[in-house]
C-alpha cells in the first residue's frame, strides 16, 4: 500500500498553507520591520544597549526565573504529598489544585486583585486587625503571585506524572540499603524527576516571559517585556521597536522550550 503522494499532500497541505500564510510570512515580515527603524539591525540589540529596555528585560527574566523556581518547589512538595498519601478529600484537593489549568491571564489578574487589591481580602483583614490596608496587587508582587497561580496547575500535573513513572523498586532498594528519607529524596527521587522539572519549568518560564493579560489587568505601568512591547506599539507608535522586541521575546521563549525539549525529551507547550 506504500506511499500515495497525492493523498499525503491532501492531508498536510491545508495545515502547511495555513501556517505559511498566517504565521511564517507574518513573522518574517515582523523580523524585517524590526530592522527597519532608525537603528537598523541594531534594534535587535536594544535589550542590551538601551538602558530602559535592558532594565525591563532584566526584570522580566528575573521575575520569570523566580516564578519558575517557586512553582517547581511548591509543586514538588504538593505533588509528592498527594502521590504518596491516601486520605479522605484527596481527590477534591487534587481537582481544586488543577482546575485553574486554563484560566486566562486577565482572569488570574482579577483574582489577584480580589486578594491583594484596594478592596481585596488582605486589605479588609488587615484593616480589621489594625495592620492597615495591605495592598500588593498592582506591583511586581502581584504579578509574581499571578504567574504563580497560572503555573502551579500545569507544573503540578507534569511533576505528578513524573512521580507516577518513578520506579518504586529503586526507592525500596535505597531504603533497604539503609538510606534515610532525606537521602532518598536527594539521591533518588529528585534526580529521577529532573526531566519533569526541566520540561514543566521551561513552560512556566516561557509563559511568564510572554504573558500579557495578567500584567495588563493589574497595572499598565508594570515594567515587563510584554507591557513594554504593548506601549511601544500602541502609545508610542514605534512599530520597529515593538517588532524587534517581540522577535527577541519570541526567540527567547522558543529557545527555552527547544532546549528543554532536547534535554527532557518531551514535547512541551506554553499557553496563555
Amino acid at each position, binding site marked *: 500500500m506504500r506511499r500515495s503522494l497525492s*493523498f*499525503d499532500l491532501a*492531508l*498536510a497541505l*491545508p*495545515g*502547511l498553507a*495555513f*501556517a505559511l500564510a*498566517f*504565521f*511564517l510570512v*507574518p513573522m518574517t*515580515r*515582523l523580523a524585517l520591520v524590526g530592522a527597519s527603524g532608525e537603528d537598523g539591525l541594531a534594534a535587535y540589540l536594544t535589550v542590551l544597549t538601551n538602558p530602559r529596555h535592558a532594565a525591563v528585560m532584566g526584570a522580566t527574566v528575573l521575575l520569570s526565573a523566580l516564578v519558575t523556581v517557586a512553582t517547581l518547589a511548591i509543586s514538588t*512538595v*504538593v505533588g*509528592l*504529598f*498527594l502521590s504518596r*498519601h491516601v486520605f479522605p478529600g484527596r481527590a477534591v484537593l487534587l481537582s*481544586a*489544585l488543577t482546575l*485553574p489549568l*486554563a*484560566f*486566562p*491571564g*486577565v*482572569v488570574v*489578574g*482579577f*483574582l489577584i486583585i*480580589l*486578594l491583594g487589591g484596594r478592596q481585596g*481580602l488582605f486589605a479588609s483583614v488587615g484593616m480589621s486587625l489594625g495592620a492597615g490596608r495591605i495592598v500588593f496587587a498592582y506591583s511586581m508582587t502581584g504579578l509574581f*503571585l499571578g504567574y*504563580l*497561580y497560572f503555573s502551579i496547575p500545569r507544573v503540578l500535573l507534569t511533576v505528578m*506524572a513524573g512521580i507516577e*513513572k518513578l520506579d518504586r523498586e529503586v526507592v525500596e532498594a535505597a531504603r533497604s540499603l539503609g538510606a534515610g528519607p532525606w537521602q532518598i529524596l536527594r539521591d533518588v527521587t529528585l534526580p529521577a524527576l529532573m526531566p519533569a522539572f526541566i520540561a514543566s519549568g521551561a513552560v512556566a518560564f516561557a509563559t511568564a*516571559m*510572554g*504573558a*500579557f*493579560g495578567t500584567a*495588563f*489587568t493589574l497595572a499598565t505601568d508594570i515594567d515587563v517585556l510584554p507591557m513594554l512591547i*504593548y506601549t511601544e506599539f500602541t502609545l508610542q507608535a514605534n512599530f520597529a521597536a*515593538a*517588532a524587534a522586541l*517581540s522577535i527577541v*521575546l*519570541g526567540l527567547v521563549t*522558543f529557545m527555552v522550550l527547544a532546549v528543554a525539549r532536547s534535554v527532557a525529551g*518531551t*514535547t512541551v*507547550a*506554553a*499557553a496563555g
Partner: protein
Amino acid sequence: MRRTAFVLQLGVTLLVAAFLMVPVAMSIAAGVTANYMRGIASGMTLKWVAEVWGLYAGTIGLSLQIALATLVVTLLIGVPAAWFLVRNPSRLSRVFEEIVTLPVAVPGLAIALALLLVYGGVRDFRASWTFILVGHVLYTLPFMMRAVMAVLQSIDARTLEEGAASLGASPWMRFLTVIVPNARPGIVAGALMVVTLSLGEFNLTWMLHTPMTKTLPVGLADSYASMRLEIASAYTLIFFVMIIPLLVAIQRIGATRPVRKGAPR
C-alpha cells in the same frame, strides 16, 4: 518526625489550594452580592448578572461563535495533519510538525503584531471576526494535533491501516472509516482543549479585536478596568459557568486515561 512531616506537607498543600480557590469563591460571591463593601449581609441579587448581560451579551455570543469555528477549522486541518505525521515519520514531516506547532512557543503578542503588519491593511478581513479566528486557530491547532497524534501512536494506527489496505480500501476510505473513528478519544480531548483555550484567549485577541469584534475576555479586561467590582465579578461568574464544566471534563479525561508514556513527538 514522620507525623510532623505529614502535617507540614498537608499544611502547604492546603495553603496552595486556598490560594487557588479562595479568590474564585470570592469572585463568585461578589458577583451575586448586592453590595460588596457591606458583604453578603447586604443580600444576594442577580441584578449584576442581568446588568452584565445587558452590557456584554454580544461578547459572550461572539466568543461562543469563534470557539466553535476554531473547533471546526482545527478539526478539518488538524486531524488530517496529525494522520499525515503519524503515517510518515520522516525528517521532512518533522519539519512540518515544527512549523505547525511553532505558534505555541511564541508569545501571542508577537504573533498578533505580525498578523497586524501583514493583514492590518486588508480592511474587510481586519474588521471581521475571522481575523480573530485566524489567531485562535494558530494558537490551538497544535493542541488538537498532539492529542490526536498521541492516540494514533498508542493504538498503532499504521498497522490498522495496513489491515484495511489489504482489504482493498482506498486511502481516503481508510482515513474516514478506520483512522478517524479510532482517533476519537484524541479528537474529543483535543476538542475540549481547543474550545477551552479559544474561549479564554486574550493575548492575541486583545491586539486583533476591534470595537465591533469584542470577545468575552476582551470584555472582561474592559470591565476590570472600568466597572464596579460587582459587575466585574458577575461577568467573571458567567465566564466561570462557561469554562469550568469544560475544565472538569478535561480533568476527567486525564484521570481515566492511563499514564501517558513519554510524550507524542
